[in-house]
């Protein structure tokens, strides 16, 4: 299917509510419709055309156009098309129909739209706060233009802890906000009967830092890659690449071939160190510290290599809009080939040992299953999707950088949907990453690594870029603005989509499997941010408020 054909179908569905459309390239379709047609077109894209919901966002355009811009992004993976659906909401009637009843995976994106720009979602089944903290005031919306980035509104006097109540007969066991297996604060409220999990609620965004806001108010185009890199503690380069690609697409900047290859190699190196880290963490979660220590020992040479090439172990600082800042020397290339060769040897030995280990299999097989149907409804991505038989990979479906030329790239898909399947997908992807790096380094073209940009980037241009991060699809959408900075920058990390599967995944399994279930989606809360197990039969649980604990005296609603 071509983008033109998709546009024709949208036009037919929207009828007189179609406002305008643009197709700057065969893989990008930007359509603006009236909000009356939103549900119909959404149903067309999701159900009829089998599209995948990616993310949504709200932009405050009241100063320029007297409206809010609500956007929803869809992917048609088999056809390499992204459809960005815009709808303009008048500022005096800031209500938009919710698409979550149609697409469960849109739940969080819509709640975030409300939290950031204050537009009401009509018909949303669960309109609780998502990214704002419980004591943030009700009527202060951070992404509105009249809201300064450094405002410090007063705390709410009696914040609600808006968690779901435990079902009858079950208890709550809180996993988080601080818990041994979580490296970052998150709150999984797990409902159990004995050891059996009967439900789960999630409260996250404890590490929400307002990066999108500060980029659009204080930083410039070329400062943002450095903050983008700090969105995540593991996959920073993915974000800086994706942001630069989005701006480059918006402004029509072609980066040199050599820069594409350099970005590709660094992306795959990042995938290697991320998957090795994850394998160790997964081992630690199930009490197998030997796996943790050995995989992290194998990982160290990669970190030293990154430091030799870029000056840093993880935050490479390599990207600018227009290309990369550092080149690969011949010694660096030789060193890289040697390091990944050593890793490949040890990794193959590990891969051979894992399926045969009976105790490991007992802990990982048939646990926390995600069915393909659930995956489609919740719009998952990355190894979480591929472990359930959903064969999507941005490097193949929507090729970028050097991936179009590289033949070593192949999708790794498993069918079972359990923790073991997701584990094996990541383990085998590691070997594919090694092949890709080797092929890219052997074929890297000569030439410049940076395309100089001589003119200011005009405002009002849209760019969308996606990358297959170690955890799945990362999306950056940029709307260029004045003063050498974007008007709006929307980031969606893959864990944002994948975290929504946790309740479905852990229900029906035991409490012991919850940590490895959460771990198996390889959650990156920093990327996302922006569980309690309650057992009803034991009696009451008193939760002390922060004020009570610090002696200030006011009280929260208990439970």
């Amino acid at each position, binding site marked *: 299917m071509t983008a033109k054909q998709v546009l024709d179908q949208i036009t037919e569905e929207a009828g007189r509510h179609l406002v305008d459309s643009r197709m700057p390239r065969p893989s990008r379709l930007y359509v603006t419709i009236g909000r009356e047609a939103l549900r119909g077109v959404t149903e067309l894209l999701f159900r009829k055309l089998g599209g995948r919901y990616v993310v949504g966002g709200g932009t405050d355009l009241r100063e320029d156009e007297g409206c809010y811009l609500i956007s929803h992004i869809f992917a048609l993976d088999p056809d390499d098309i992204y459809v960005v659906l815009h709808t303009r909401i008048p500022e005096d009637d800031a209500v938009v129909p919710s698409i979550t009843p149609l697409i469960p995976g849109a739940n969080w994106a819509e709640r975030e739209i409300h939290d950031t720009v204050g537009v009401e979602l009509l018909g949303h089944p669960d309109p609780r706060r998502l990214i704002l903290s419980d004591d943030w005031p009700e009527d202060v919306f951070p992404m509105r233009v009249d809201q300064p980035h450094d405002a410090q509104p007063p705390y709410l006097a009696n914040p609600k802890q808006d968690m779901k109540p435990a079902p009858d007969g079950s*208890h*709550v*066991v*809180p996993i988080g906000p601080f*818990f*041994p*297996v979580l490296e970052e604060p998150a709150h999984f409220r797990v409902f159990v009967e*004995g*050891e059996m999990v009967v439900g789960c609620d999630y409260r996250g965004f404890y590490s929400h830092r307002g990066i999108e806001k500060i980029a659009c108010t204080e930083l410039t185009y070329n400062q943002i890659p450095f903050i983008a890199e700090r969105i995540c503690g593991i996959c920073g380069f993915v974000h800086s690449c994706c942001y630069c690609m989005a701006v480059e697409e918006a402004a029509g900047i072609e980066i040199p071939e050599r820069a594409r290859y350099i970005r590709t190699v660094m992306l795959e190196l990042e995938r290697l160190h991320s998957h090795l880290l994850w394998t160790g963490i997964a*081992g*630690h*979660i*199930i*009490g*197998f*510290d*030997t*796996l943790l*220590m*050995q995989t992290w*020992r194998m990982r160290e040479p990669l970190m030293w290599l990154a430091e030799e090439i870029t000056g840093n172990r993880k935050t490479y600082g390599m990207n600018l809009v227009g290309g990369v800042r550092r080149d690969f020397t011949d010694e660096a290339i030789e060193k890289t080939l040697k390091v990944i060769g050593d890793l490949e040897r040890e990794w193959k030995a590990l891969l051979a040992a894992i399926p045969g280990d009976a*105790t*490991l299999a*007992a*802990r990982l097989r048939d646990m926390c299953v995600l069915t393909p149907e659930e995956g489609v409804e919740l719009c998952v991505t990355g190894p979480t999707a591929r472990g359930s038989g959903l064969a999507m990979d941005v490097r193949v479906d929507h090729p970028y950088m050097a991936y179009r030329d590289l033949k070593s790239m192949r999708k790794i898909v498993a069918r079972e949907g359990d923790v073991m399947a997701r584990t094996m997908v990541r383990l085998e992807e590691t070997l594919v990453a090694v092949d890709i790096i080797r092929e890219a380094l052997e074929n890297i073209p000569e030439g410049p690594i940076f395309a100089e940009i001589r003119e200011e980037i005009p405002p009002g241009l849209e760019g969308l870029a996606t990358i297959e991060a170690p955890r799945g699809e990362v999306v950056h959408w940029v709307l260029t603005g004045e003063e050498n900075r974007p008007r709006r920058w929307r980031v969606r990390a893959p864990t944002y989509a994948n975290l929504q599967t946790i309740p479905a995944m852990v229900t029906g399994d*035991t*409490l*012991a*499997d*919850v*940590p490895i279930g959460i771990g198996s989606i390889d959650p990156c809360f920093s990327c996302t941010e922006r569980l309690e*197990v309650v*057992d009803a039969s*034991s009696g009451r*649980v008193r939760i002390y408020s922060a004020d009570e604990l610090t002696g200030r005296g006011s009280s929260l609603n208990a439970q």
Partner: protein
Amino acid sequence: MSGEQLGPWAAALWTLAGMLVIAALAPLMEGLIRKLRARIHSRQGPPITQPYLDLAKLLIKEDLRVSPSVLLRMGPLVFLAAMLLAGGLIPLWPTGEHAYGGDAIVFAYLLALATGSVIITGLASRSPFSVVGASRETVMMAGTEPTLVLSLLVVAVNAGSLRFTDLAGFQLAAGTELSVIVAAVAYVLALQVLVARIPFDIAEAETELMGGPFTELSGPSLALCKLAMYTKPLIFSLLFLQVFLPWLGAAVPWAWLQPIVVLAAVFLLNLLAVGVIDALNPRLRVDQAVGYMAAVAVIAITAMAYAALAPH
């Protein structure tokens, strides 16, 4: 010799001596297991005296109690006291003029008391994690008690006595029996569960339950429980060697050397069996452990049936 021959004061002193030996050596055993684990991890690991330092540091910290309940105050004390007392009952000299050992049934009672106090500590801590940990500990106890008691009883039935010295002495005098061999196999298979190490450290599973029954303990209370946990490999391996393999101690020509050789063998057994298995496996879930423990209990029951029915 037995308690009756010694008189109560001498028996008490012998038991106390055993308790002190166990208390003094347990952290060293733990330190060696940690060192082995570190080497398997390709890392240096802490010094083998680290557990002594850990306990010393905990003892000087504040004992922050989550509730004024006397159960929470007594739980760790009873745990350690019961474990040490149980350990003190095991003879360091199975036979000969220095042989003193306790009663197998008292031993089993003391172990049950120890586990019971862990469970009570967990329940009294009122944390959701400690409560789940306590419930898991209950399941694990229910799984291992039968095997432990039955394997001891098999030897007791064969020996015609419940005293440890007689259990050891019987095999030295009469040679071994098939039922005893099978009981020994059951005991060895249960060893990893009895010492609560990976894959069976399920009650305390750090990544699942923070600290299990010990989650809310701090300072001296935690130190007592840690020491009690450290004694487990020592006690259960020592019991195995003295009851099922008494020839080891008996083979040593000099009496003063016997306990040293036996303890060295205990250390070796713990390193090669408990330590290696601990480092090379992930943790099992409680329901998976139950399946394993049931299978081992069946072996113990078979040994018992044979011991009871076969002519002596």
